[in-house]
């Protein structure tokens, strides 16, 4: 079994490294620093840590004002509060002015678990991807998270990064190199392509391994850079495999599946299936139970791949 690490722990330590390298990096949090792990930054750079209290709209506005004056603010809270709670502030104060604010949200998706629907962000990617000029990234593991946090710090423009609450297996190899706008091929294959983000990337690899035993050869792409999406990789996969399955811990509407489908239908229409939350709110439960209940498992990916392949003309 690969080692399991919580990406938010990696976020906290990477932010400290970045803080050492660049004094313009500041962190903001809305009373959940101990959970988002910006508390790590606070311990090292208390003067550059801004606690805004339970006031996410104000946090986004303050972050915009900091960015407009040369700071590189990392604003963190839980994904539900970092997006839908303050979407208008993100839209007008940050995105419309294309300000260099980095929103790093944790506790996204069903895998928040017992806290239930109000705390399970399943629409944050649809919201943030809808904003012109926003960069949206969903890392799959700790190794990738480090690189993503470094990449968005170096990128000039507003960014949203989505992290889960729990630990995830380390699936990226030592050779892994993240680049904004690039998909990463984790496994070659010619019969179908599985495109996954975040906590669904490991199950995508498991599904591909299971399908290989049935002589179904699946390509697996880590689509961490959701916006900009790697259109060339999507089109190539459509051309070379003829069937695509997407997997995400998000509403089907407006997430990875929708974004990939937009590229596919415009360029190279092929059968597609989407493993995602189907227009439902979450509920309390253990993370694994919830993923199973909502059909976000490697078994469901296997079924979806077979279905997509069966629809090839």
């Amino acid at each position: 079994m690969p080692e399991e690490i919580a990406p938010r722990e990696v976020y906290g330590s990477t932010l400290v490294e970045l803080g050492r390298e660049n004094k313009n990096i500041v962190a903001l949090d809305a009373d959940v620093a101990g959970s988002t792990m910006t508390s790590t930054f606070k311990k090292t750079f208390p003067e550059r840590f801004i606690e805004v209290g339970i006031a996410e709209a104000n946090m986004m506005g303050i972050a915009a004002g900091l960015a407009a004056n040369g700071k590189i603010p990392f604003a963190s809270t839980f994904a539900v509060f970092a997006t839908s709670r303050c979407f208008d502030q993100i839209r007008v104060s940050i995105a419309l002015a294309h300000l260099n604010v980095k929103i790093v949200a944790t506790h996204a998706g069903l895998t928040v678990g017992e806290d239930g629907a109000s705390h399970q962000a399943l629409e944050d990617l649809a919201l943030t991807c809808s904003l012109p000029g926003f960069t949206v990234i969903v890392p799959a593991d700790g190794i990738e998270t480090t690189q993503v946090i470094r990449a968005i710090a170096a990128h000039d423009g507003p960014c949203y990064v989505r992290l889960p609450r729990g630990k995830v297996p380390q699936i990226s190899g030592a050779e892994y190199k993240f680049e904004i706008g690039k998909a990463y091929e984790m496994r070659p294959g010619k019969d179908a392509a599985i495109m996954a983000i975040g906590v669904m990337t490991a199950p995508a690899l498991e599904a591909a391994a299971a399908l290989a035993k049935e002589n179904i050869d699946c390509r697996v792409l880590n689509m961490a850079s959701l916006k900009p999406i790697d259109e060339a990789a999507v089109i190539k996969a459509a051309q070379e495999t003829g069937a695509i399955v997407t997997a995400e811990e998000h509403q089907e509407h407006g997430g990875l599946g929708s974004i990939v489908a937009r590229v596919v239908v415009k360029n190279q229409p092929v059968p597609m299936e989407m493993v995602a939350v189907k227009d439902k709110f979450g509920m309390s439960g253990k993370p694994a139970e919830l993923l199973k209940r909502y059909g976000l498992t490697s078994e469901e990916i296997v079924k979806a791949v077979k279905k997509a392949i069966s629809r090839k003309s």
Partner: protein
Amino acid sequence: MYNINAVTNPSERQHSTPPATVGSGVFSSDEDLISVCKRLRRDIVTMIAKAGSGHPGGSLSAVEILTALYWKIMRHKPSDPQWPDRDRFILSKGHAAPVLYAALGECGYFPKSDWETLRQLDSHLQGHTERLTTHGVEMSAGSLGQGLSFAAGAALTGKLDNRSWRVYALLSDGECAEGQIWEAVIAAKQYKLDNLTAILDNNGVQLGGFTKDIMDIEPFNVKFEAFGWNVIEINGHDINQVLDALKKSQEVKGKPTMIIAHTIKGKGVSFMENTAEFHGKAPNAEQLEKALKELA
């Protein structure tokens, strides 16, 4: 003629350009401020009439405030809008764009002829102020209640970097019904932002009528005092009172200042005064002529 790219990535948008005639130094002027105010009011009604839409009422009520700031109080360079040592002006009530465009144009941030393009396709003078399009505009605004948070972020930057520049933010009374204003009020006190002066353009009228009838937020003074701010109340149309209050706010230590400027919506044009009718309506040709006569 303008490079605004209104439909694609905002990062591709371009600023307006200052006219070649503007000096390179810190703006200064010896002109009588009362005549500057009159001129700004004429600029405002003229550009809105030409545009055929816009917000005259809340622009006219803020004329003395912007005149005091841009002509006497703030250190700023029209030739270098992003001059790092400039004082920052944050317009939270973004619909009052015409008063800011009037002040920026008069100071030389862009040619005054640009006013004729207000609200037109591809103009850098958008219906609500935008940072990416117009020289001298600090914040993209238009959704009320957001400017004081932005101003607090700017002021925090000044504190973090130990800079001497100040931040001035203009709010409307009606927008104080937005909860975010009070979030920012709390935070500015918490962070002891004495480099921040907010000015409340308390004209008592909003889109739907009188503020006191729609959502009565008065008394403002005791509310801001209770939240830990230094509060100064003035007649917002007495230029000397505005100047004195702004200067006093610079001396306060350990807390932000709120200047409650009692103003009149539509000030200076008799038929626009103290009415919601001209909150967001342009004068027609006949009304413009009448307004300009009154402002002569």
